């Protein structure tokens, strides 16, 4: 069975500093990986996803994540955060083995950007 681990429940970081939000998964088959973001009082929205091809994926607002199969990780990074990045970030995984495969979400990491 697949699972997702986000070890950091909260990450405080100063504005304009770099940040890394960690995500590790376990699965015995090939996977699809996602990062979703939830701004205060809103639902989740997709930030970026890895399906296949290049292991480095980017979002339109400067985040990037790298799929590392050997370390079973999909960490999210941004070189310089902004106040508006304050939100909760969820890593998610699904197994691409045909038919409907459930998406499993991590427990979330709250990013607190400090002015």
């Amino acid at each position, binding site marked *: 069975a697949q699972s997702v681990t*986000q070890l950091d*429940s909260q990450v405080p970081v100063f504005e304009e500093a770099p940040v890394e939000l960690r995500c590790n998964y376990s699965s015995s088959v090939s996977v*699809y990986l*996602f990062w*979703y973001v939830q701004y205060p*009082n*809103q*639902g*989740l*929205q*997709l930030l970026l*996803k890895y*399906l296949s091809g290049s292991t480095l994926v980017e979002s339109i607002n400067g985040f990037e994540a790298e799929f590392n199969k050997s370390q079973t990780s999909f960490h999210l990074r941004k070189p310089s955060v902004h106040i508006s990045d304050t939100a909760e970030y*969820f890593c998610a995984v*699904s*197994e*691409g083995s045909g038919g*409907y*495969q*459930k*998406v499993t*979400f*991590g*427990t*979330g990491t709250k990013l607190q950007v400090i002015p």
Partner: protein
Amino acid sequence: DVKVTQSSRYLVKRTGEKVFLECVQDMDHENMFWYRQDPGLGLRLIYFSYDVKMKEKGDIPEGYSVSREKKERFSLILESASTNQTSMYLCASSLPDGSLMTQYFGPGTRLLVL
């Protein structure tokens, strides 16, 4: 833009009441989902539906039921609300092959059961 709307942002109910949470999507998506979100537990799947009148149990279906009579609408029903069902409820939809398709979420309904 895909839009997923939920009937209420906040709801207060009493123990034992029957509660209906409604979700509507406007993008003709086949798949629809109900999750509950609790601090430290992330999102947990309650039920999902891949077609009209079709439903599948998720990880925590106990105490809940669902209804999907029309493609655009997916309802979550708490037959007899209990205090441990106090939570944030999120509805989502996606195209088929939900394993790789983006899920689009509604804003959530925060339910308090007294």
